[in-house]
C-alpha cells in the first residue's frame, strides 16, 4: 500500500495517507494539550505516543475494520449459527437428515455418472473409435472382416477380436483364462502402451508367428508374482507354447462393453478360416480416418456390405456402426440420467423440507431479528446472517452426505452388477467431493434465501408488537406451497418406483422357456488336455455325461455348447429343402446350438413335439436337428416342422440334409427381454465343427445338471466326477441357473432398489413436512382453538378442520405431481417392461398412498389441537 500525502479520500492509497496524517494530527494536538498541562515538549510527545499505542497498531486496526469486518462478521455468524444448531438438536437433526439424504444420494449417483458416462474411455481419441456388428450385437465372419478392412476408406484402420478361454497350465494349478484373440493392429489402433515389453507387431497374426501373448496386469500379478522378467518367458496355453511379449497396465480393459475383464491377449491368425463367410465369431473395431465422420463411415460400410451381399448372399446383413463410447454406455445412459433426475428430485424435497422448517423458525425469530435491525443492523446484514445459518446447516449436511455417499458408493459397486460398464472406476474422488461441496452450498442458498428474505422484512415495529405470533399469512401461503411441492415431487418419485416395481414383477413372470430352479451349470474345457484331440472329444463328453448321470444327487444331465443368457451366441445360415435360395435379405439364419442328449430334460424345456436327440444320432446315421418354435413358425407357418429338412453344410457341393425331429419352445437367448430368434439345436455327435475342427472354440461344453437338493451344493462332488474322467480338464463358470436368471434381470432390480429407496425417503420427507407444518400451525393456533371450543365447536370438528386444511394442500400438491409424473415418466420408458409409462392404476395408487401419508401426518397433530383445554388456551399469550 502506498503512502500518499494528505488528500481527498479518493483511492485506497489516499485513504491510507489520510489515516497517517490524522494520527500525526492527533499526536500534535495531544502533545499541545499535555504541554498546556505543564509537561516539557519532549516528555509530552513521548506520553502522547504511548497513548496512541503505536501508530501502526492503530492503523492496522482501522484497516481491519475495513478488510476484516466481513470475515469477522462471518465468523461471528458461523459461531452464532453453530450455537443455535446445538441449542435445538431436534430441528438440527431433522434438517441435517433431510439434506444429507438428498446430498448423499446425489453425490453417490454423480460418482457413478462420472465414472461411467463422463470420464472418457482410456484410449487415444476414443470418440474416433467405432464398433461394427451385425444388427448391433452379432459378430461377423473372417472373410467379411477382411473385405471390410480392405475396401473401407473411411476407417484408417480396422481390427477384429474373438472370444477365447484357453487353459493356462504350468506354474501352479491349471486355470481357464478369460482371453481375447486380436488382429495384430488392434491394440496399437487403440493408442495404448504396455507397462512392460511391447504390443503385437504387424505379421504376428500370421499362422506360425502367432505364438506370442500379452498379459493383463491382474494375471501377471496373480500367476507370475508381478515378475518384471516375465517378458521373453514361455507359457503354456491349451498345451501350446506362447512367448510373453508384453504386460498391459493395470487400468487397461478392452473391450468394455462385451467380454469384460479379459486378462490375456494373443494374435488372431485366420489361416484357412480367412475365406470363411459362415463362422460368425468376430467383433470388429475401427478407427475413423482423419477426415471421415461416423455418418460417412456408416454410408460406406452400407455400400460395401451391399456389394458383398450381392456376391455372397446371406452373409452380410445389417451391419451397425456404433461409436465405441456409445457402444459402452449407450444402453446405460438413459437409466443413469433418470436416476440423476430422481436424486435431484429427492434433494429438492429435502430443500423444500428444510426451507419450511426454517420459515417456521424464522417466524418464531422475528422478534430477535427485529431487535437486531432496531440496533442498527441493515437488512442485507440480517439476510447474510440468516443465510450463514442455512449454509452452516447445509455444509454440515454436505459433510454427512459425502460420508453417506462414500458408504453408498461401496454398496452400489457391490450391488452393481456386471451390466454397469466401468463400475470398478466408481469412487468418491476430489471431483466428486467438489461436486458435493458445490451441491451443499447451492442447496444452502436455495433453501435459505426465501426464509431469510422473509424473516428480514423491514416491518420492525409490527414484528416487535406481534412478537412470536407474527407468522403472517404470506408466510403461511409460502409454507403451503413448499409442502405442496414436496408432495408433487414425491409423487413423481413414487410413480417411478412403482412403475419399476411393476416392471420387475413383469420380468419375473416372463417364461424363459426353461425351469431354472434346481439346475447347476459348469463349463468343462478339454483344451490342452489329451481329450482335446478332435477324435477323442466326443467320446470324452459322452463318458463324462454318463458318469455325471450316475453321480449321487443328480436327477438328469445334458450338455450344450452355449448356455442361454450366459453363453456366447453364434449364428449360422441354412438352406431349406425344396425352396429356391431366398432373396438375400430373407435368407434364413439361426442361432447355433449344439447339444448332447438330455439337455432339454435337464433344463426343464418341454419339447412341443417330436423327440430329443439320442446317442444314436451320430456321424454315419441320418442327420437330425431340433428347431425352436420361432424357426418352425417362420419357415413352415401353419404346418408341422417335423420331418422337414434343412442344411447348414455341404459336402462336394451337395447339401447335407438334416431332418427336423423335434420342436422346442422359444428360450430366452442373450437377454431376458429380447424377442425370440430362430434357433437350431444340432446333435454334438453329428456336428462336424465339434467333431473335427481343432479350434479352441470347439473344445468346451457346458454341463447342465438338474439335482435333487440344492444345486449349488452339488458343485464339489461334480468337480470330483469331472476330475475322475480327466484331471487336466478345467471347470469354470460354475453357477446355478437361478443365479444366471438373477443376473439377467439384475439391471431392473438395481434400478428398482435405488428408486424404491429414493421414493421411500421422499414419502417420509413429505410426511415429515406435513407433520411439521401442521404441528406448528396447531401450536400457533391454540388460542383460536380454545375460543372455538368455548363457543361450542366439537372436538371432532376441530380435527376435521385441521386435517381438511392440510389435505387441501396435499391434494393440490398431488394434482401437480400427477401432472408432472405424466410429463416425466415417459423418460423412463426404456427401463420399463410390460407396463406403460403412464399407467393410470399405478399413478392412482401412488396418489392414494401419499394421501394416506398426508392424512396420518396431519391427523396426529390435529388430535392434539382437539385436546386443548379452553381455559388454558385462552390464557396462552
Amino acid at each position, binding site marked *: 500500500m502506498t503512502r500518499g500525502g*494528505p488528500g481527498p*479520500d479518493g483511492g485506497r492509497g489516499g485513504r491510507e495517507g*489520510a*489515516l497517517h*496524517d*490524522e*494520527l500525526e*494530527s*492527533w499526536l*500534535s*494536538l*495531544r502533545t*499541545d*494539550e499535555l504541554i498546556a498541562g505543564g509537561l516539557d515538549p519532549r516528555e509530552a510527545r513521548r*506520553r502522547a505516543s*504511548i*497513548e*496512541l*499505542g503505536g501508530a501502526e*497498531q*492503530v492503523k492496522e*486496526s*482501522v484497516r*481491519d*475494520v*475495513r478488510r476484516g*469486518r466481513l470475515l469477522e462478521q462471518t465468523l461471528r455468524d458461523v459461531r452464532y449459527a453453530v450455537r443455535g444448531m446445538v441449542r435445538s438438536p431436534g430441528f438440527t437433526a431433522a434438517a441435517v437428515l433431510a439434506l444429507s439424504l438428498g446430498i448423499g444420494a446425489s453425490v453417490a449417483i454423480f460418482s457413478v455418472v462420472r465414472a461411467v458416462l463422463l470420464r472418457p474411455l482410456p484410449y487415444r481419441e476414443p470418440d474416433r473409435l467405432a464398433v461394427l456388428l451385425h444388427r448391433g450385437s452379432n459378430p461377423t465372419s473372417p472373410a467379411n472382416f477382411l473385405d471390410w478392412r480392405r475396401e473401407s476408406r473411411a476407417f484408417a484402420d480396422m481390427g477384429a477380436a474373438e472370444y477365447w478361454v484357453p487353459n493356462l497350465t504350468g506354474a501352479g494349478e491349471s486355470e481357464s483364462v478369460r482371453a481375447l484373440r486380436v488382429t495384430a493392429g488392434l491394440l496399437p489402433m487403440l493408442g495404448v502402451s504396455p507397462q512392460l515389453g511391447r504390443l503385437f507387431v504387424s505379421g504376428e497374426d500370421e499362422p506360425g508367428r502367432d505364438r506370442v501373448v500379452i498379459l493383463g496386469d491382474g494375471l501377471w500379478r496373480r500367476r507370475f508374482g508381478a515378475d518384471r522378467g516375465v517378458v521373453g518367458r514361455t507359457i503354456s496355453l491349451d498345451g501350446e507354447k506362447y512367448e510373453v511379449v508384453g504386460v498391459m497396465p493395470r487400468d487397461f480393459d478392452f473391450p468394455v462393453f462385451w467380454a469384460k475383464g479379459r486378462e490375456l491377449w494373443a494374435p488372431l491368425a485366420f489361416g484357412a478360416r480367412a475365406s470363411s463367410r459362415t463362422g460368425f465369431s468376430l467383433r470388429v473395431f475401427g478407427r475413423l480416418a482423419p477426415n471421415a465422420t461416423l455418418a460417412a463411415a456408416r454410408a460406406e460400410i452400407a455400400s460395401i456390405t451391399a456389394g458383398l451381399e450381392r456376391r455372397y448372399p446371406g452373409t452380410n446383413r445389417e451391419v451397425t456402426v456404433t461409436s465405441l463410447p456409445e457402444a459402452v454406455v449407450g444402453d446405460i445412459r438413459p437409466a443413469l440420467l433418470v436416476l440423476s433426475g430422481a436424486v435431484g428430485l429427492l434433494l429438492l424435497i429435502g430443500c423444500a423440507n428444510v426451507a419450511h422448517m426454517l420459515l417456521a423458525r424464522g417466524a418464531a425469530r422475528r422478534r430477535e431479528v427485529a431487535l437486531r435491525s*432496531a*440496533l*442498527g443492523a441493515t437488512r442485507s446484514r440480517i439476510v447474510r446472517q440468516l443465510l450463514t445459518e442455512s449454509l452452516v446447516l447445509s455444509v454440515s449436511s454436505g459433510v454427512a452426505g459425502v460420508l453417506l455417499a462414500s458408504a453408498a458408493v461401496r454398496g452400489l459397486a457391490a450391488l452393481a452388477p456386471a451390466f454397469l460398464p466401468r463400475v470398478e472406476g466408481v469412487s468418491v474422488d476430489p471431483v466428486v467431493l467438489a461436486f458435493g461441496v458445490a451441491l451443499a452450498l447451492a442447496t444452502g442458498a436455495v433453501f435459505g434465501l426465501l426464509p431469510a428474505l422473509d424473516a428480514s422484512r423491514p416491518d420492525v415495529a409490527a414484528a416487535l408488537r406481534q412478537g412470536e405470533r407474527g407468522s403472517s399469512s404470506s408466510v403461511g401461503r409460502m409454507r403451503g406451497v413448499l409442502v405442496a411441492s414436496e408432495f408433487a415431487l414425491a409423487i413423481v418419485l413414487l410413480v417411478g418406483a412403482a412403475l419399476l416395481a411393476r416392471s420387475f414383477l413383469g420380468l419375473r413372470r416372463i417364461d424363459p422357456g426353461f425351469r431354472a430352479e434346481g439346475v447347476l451349470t459348469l463349463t468343462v474345457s478339454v483344451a490342452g488336455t489329451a481329450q482335446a484331440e478332435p477324435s477323442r472329444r466326443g467320446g470324452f463328453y459322452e463318458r463324462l455325461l454318463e458318469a455325471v448321470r450316475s453321480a449321487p444327487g443328480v436327477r438328469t444331465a445334458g450338455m450344450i455348447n452355449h448356455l442361454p443368457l450366459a453363453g456366447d451366441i453364434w449364428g449360422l445360415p441354412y438352406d431349406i429343402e425344396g425352396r429356391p435360395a431366398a432373396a438375400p435379405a430373407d435368407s434364413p439364419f439361426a442361432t447355433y446350438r449344439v447339444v448332447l442328449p438330455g439337455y432339454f430334460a435337464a433344463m426343464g424345456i418341454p419339447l412341443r413335439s417330436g423327440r430329443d436327440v439320442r446317442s444314436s444320432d451320430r456321424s454315419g446315421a441320418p442327420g437330425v436337428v431340433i428347431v425352436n418354435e420361432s424357426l418352425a413358425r417362420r419357415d413352415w407357418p401353419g404346418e408341422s416342422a417335423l420331418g422337414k429338412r434343412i442344411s447348414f453344410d455341404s459336402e462336394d457341393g451337395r447339401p447335407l440334409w438334416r431332418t427336423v425331429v423335434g420342436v422346442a419352445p422359444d428360450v430366452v437367448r442373450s437377454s431376458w427381454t429380447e424377442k425370440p430368434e430362430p434357433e437350431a439345436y444340432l446333435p454334438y455327435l453329428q456336428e462336424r465343427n465339434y467333431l473335427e475342427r481343432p479350434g479352441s472354440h470347439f473344445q468346451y461344453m457346458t454341463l447342465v445338471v438338474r439335482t435333487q437338493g440344492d444345486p449349488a451344493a452339488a458343485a464339489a462332488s461334480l468337480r470330483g466326477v469331472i476330475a475322475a474322467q480327466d484331471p487336466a480338464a478345467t471347470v469354470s463358470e460354475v453357477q446355478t441357473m437361478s443365479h444366471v436368471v438373477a443376473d439377467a434381470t439384475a439391471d431392473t432390480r438395481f434400478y428398482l432398489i435405488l428408486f424404491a429407496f429414493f421414493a421411500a425417503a421422499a414419502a417420509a420427507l413429505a410426511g415429515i413436512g406435513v407433520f411439521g407444518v401442521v404441528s406448528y400451525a396447531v401450536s400457533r393456533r391454540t388460542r383460536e382453538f380454545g375460543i372455538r371450543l368455548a363457543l361450542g365447536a366439537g372436538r371432532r370438528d376441530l380435527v376435521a378442520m385441521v386435517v381438511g386444511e392440510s389435505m387441501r394442500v396435499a391434494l393440490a400438491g398431488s394434482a401437480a405431481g400427477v401432472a408432472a409424473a405424466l410429463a416425466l415418466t415417459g423418460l423412463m420408458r426404456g427401463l420399463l417392461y410390460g407396463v406403460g409409462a403412464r399407467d393410470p392404476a399405478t399413478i392412482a395408487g401412488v396418489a392414494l398412498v401419499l394421501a394416506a401419508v398426508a392424512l396420518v401426518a396431519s391427523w396426529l397433530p390435529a388430535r392434539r389441537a382437539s385436546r386443548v383445554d379452553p381455559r388454558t388456551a385462552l390464557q396462552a399469550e
Partner: protein
Amino acid sequence: MKTPSSPSPSPPSPSPLLQGTLDLLILRALSTGEMHGLGIARRISQITRGAFDVKPGSLFPALYRMEERGWLASSWGESENRRRAKFYVLTRAGKRQLRTETAEWGRVALAIRAALETP
C-alpha cells in the same frame, strides 16, 4: 485490542466499552457540532463524567467504520491552536441513527433496570 496503560486522570476507573455503546457515544458527542478525533474523545469523557476514556485504538476504527456506514462525514481543517486536523460531522443518516439508538437504548436501559429491580 491491547493498548499500553496510560495514567487516567478521571476518578472512576474507566469501563470497557461495548461496541454499540461507543457508536452511540460518538454520535451523541458529535450532535453538538463538528469535532476532530481528540475533541470527540474529550467530549465523551466530559459527557460521561469521566466514566469512559476512549483510546485512539478504539476511537479511530470506530470513526472509520461509522464513516463507511454513512453516519459521519469528514473534512480537513484547522484546530483552535492552528494545527491541521480532520473534523467529523453527523450526516442525516447519522442523526437518524442517533435518534433510533437513543430510543432503543432507552428501552433496553428501562428493561434492564426493571429486570434488576424485580425481586
